[in-house]
């Protein structure tokens, strides 16, 4: 790979404004970000800082109000709903805090789900790849268990298998350990780390748990919809996080920041 290669993810000056009637909430305020293939990035920050919004943006679930997003050179900003569905299907795997598996559907069928929406995958290929993905996360012996018959950690590993089954470029994990105890959390995190190091999958992780964030190779700290720290050193990130928390004592959580309200028409920053 040469230095001129396009980055996997390139966000330039991305804004996300939610129009709630009278009030406009700016969830992202001019985020610029570049992520290369094979990185392991943690998005950290207090609640309401825009982590999840940024995650949805990166995962092509949402489109920015302003700014541009290039995913592997493709412009995801101007894409149609179907175009973004195709990108999610081929390039991105999601792991959610609450697993989001289909109830009363076996593990292997849950994992097959993304392949159902991919063109030209036969039923036998689907089954084969789903079984392989489940073996990869160590659940080769739980193929026909329903989510209700699996522990939290196992359910999350099914979700990881589902995210991997389409060979995506990026695995997005939104608080993947939020519903797990500390032991299974470590297992899931170990699994993500192995996938990153051995299979070279780019991982973007949203967490507010410092023990989870510690494992990432690069940490982005968000505050009030802006990236305030971009570091490979966990200590630096930690200091930045705590400084934010000190400053956050005064305003109540419903009004994230004084600067969040801007007069109409000036939502784009100068310069």
């Amino acid at each position, binding site marked *: 790979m040469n230095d001129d290669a396009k980055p996997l993810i390139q966000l330039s000056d991305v804004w996300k404004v939610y129009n709630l009637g009278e009030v406009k909430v700016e969830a992202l305020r001019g985020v610029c970000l570049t992520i290369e293939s094979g990185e392991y990035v943690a998005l950290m920050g207090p609640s309401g800082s825009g982590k999840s919004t940024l995650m949805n943006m990166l995962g092509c679930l949402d489109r920015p109000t302003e700014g541009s997003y290039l995913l592997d050179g493709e412009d995801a900003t101007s894409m149609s709903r179907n175009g973004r*569905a195709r990108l999610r299907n081929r390039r991105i795997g999601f792991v959610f805090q609450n697993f989001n598996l289909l109830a009363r559907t076996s593990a292997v069928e849950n994992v097959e789900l*993304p392949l159902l929406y991919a063109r030209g995958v036969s039923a036998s290929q689907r089954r084969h790849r789903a079984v392989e993905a489940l073996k990869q996360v160590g659940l080769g012996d739980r193929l026909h268990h329903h989510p209700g018959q699996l522990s939290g950690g196992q359910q999350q590993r099914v979700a990881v298998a589902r995210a991997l089954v389409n060979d995506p470029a990026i695995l997005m994990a939104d608080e993947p350990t939020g519903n797990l105890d500390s032991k299974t959390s470590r297992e899931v995190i170990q699994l993500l780390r192995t996938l990153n190091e051995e299979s070279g999958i780019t991982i973007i992780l949203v967490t507010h748990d410092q023990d989870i964030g510690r494992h990432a190779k690069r940490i982005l700290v968000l505050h009030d919809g802006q990236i305030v720290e971009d570091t490979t050193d966990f200590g630096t990130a930690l200091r930045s996080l705590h400084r934010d928390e000190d400053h956050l004592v005064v305003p109540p959580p419903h009004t994230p920041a004084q600067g969040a309200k801007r007069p109409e028409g000036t939502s784009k920053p100068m310069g």
Partner: protein
Amino acid sequence: MNLLVTIRIALRALRKNKMRAGLTILGVVIGIAAVTAMVSIGQSASSLVQGQFESLGTNILVIFSASHRHGPVHHGQGSIRSLTAGDSEAIADECPAVLATSPIVGTGGQVIYGNTNWRPREMVGVGTDYLIVGNWTLRHGGFFTERDISSSSKVCVIGQTLVAKLFQTTNPLNETIRISNIPFRIIGILEPKGANIVGEDQDNIIMMPHTTVAKRLRRTSFDTVDVILVSARAVDRMPDAQREVRQLLCERHHVAPGQPADFEVQDMTEIADILGVITGTMTLLLSSIAGISLVVGGVGIMNIMLVSVTERTREIGIRMAVGARGGDILRQFLIESILLAMIGGLVGFGLGVAASAGITAVINSLMKSVEWPTVISIPAAVLAIVFSSAVGIAFGFYPAWRASKLDPIEALRYE
């Protein structure tokens, strides 16, 4: 995503909630069952009517004397006795579209054989060609000849009911029965014909030469007959036959152009057509009432599909997150509602057929003389399925469309 997989997913979704699915399709089941039963019974009725007319001969014209008017008082059909046996022969000889004719002279009376007696429903005098005109066949013996007619022979032909009532074990052929103290020799026995359209026993009949009835039983010297039955060469020559008969009779009866004729010609197919229209209209009316319940069933499906979409918002979010397009979601829910409606249609069709079979069985047991056929038509089955699928599409589209337009982020967050 291919159709087969979509259908499998839809079936699984329905199986997860069997009770609800069953109640949802109930409306469609009832609707289709009602329509099927109505159409099927209507078809039985019209095929019954048709069968009856065919047994009578569909290519028949009936010629009556016109009604006689005495000042302001009408005396009813046949009150002028203007038709003669000569007319009947002339029609047979001179009208090319006519196959055969027979004069009819009616009477009534007691038939006595040995120490038993019976009063037949019909005691008629007929011509030599009556078997052709009336679409009858003989089981045993022969029919009247020209000689029998010209000499007013004391011979008769009897139906199966008379055979049963008067002759238990003896062979009736060539036996002698008495009517008004006149002995008649039985020369022929008719095939059974069964009941007619209004349930009257057509086999309860005795026939004699029309001259015999006129001279010996009615004791009249006039050559007049009650009715002339005319049989056309084919059903499509009925209009020709009717025109020729009118023209000939007008000449023979000296009816001036523009004057009312002293006879009336009735076409049996006209009656059959009218009865067909009546049964058809009744079927249509009942079916459209039944069709309303189909619409109600469709609304039921829509209602449940809307609930289902709301309940499964999270599932829709998950599917969208892993790459399902709006179209995929739309198809999934649409196929679910189509399947619901189609299953309802099939079950309803089965129930409808069972119901109509039951109803015709009840009718047949109540009216022993008439055999209502049970008609199960393949087009009706196809129509039921097509119609119920159409209901599924029409009422499933809106919920499916709503599902496809969900925002994936909000759908994923839905609790």
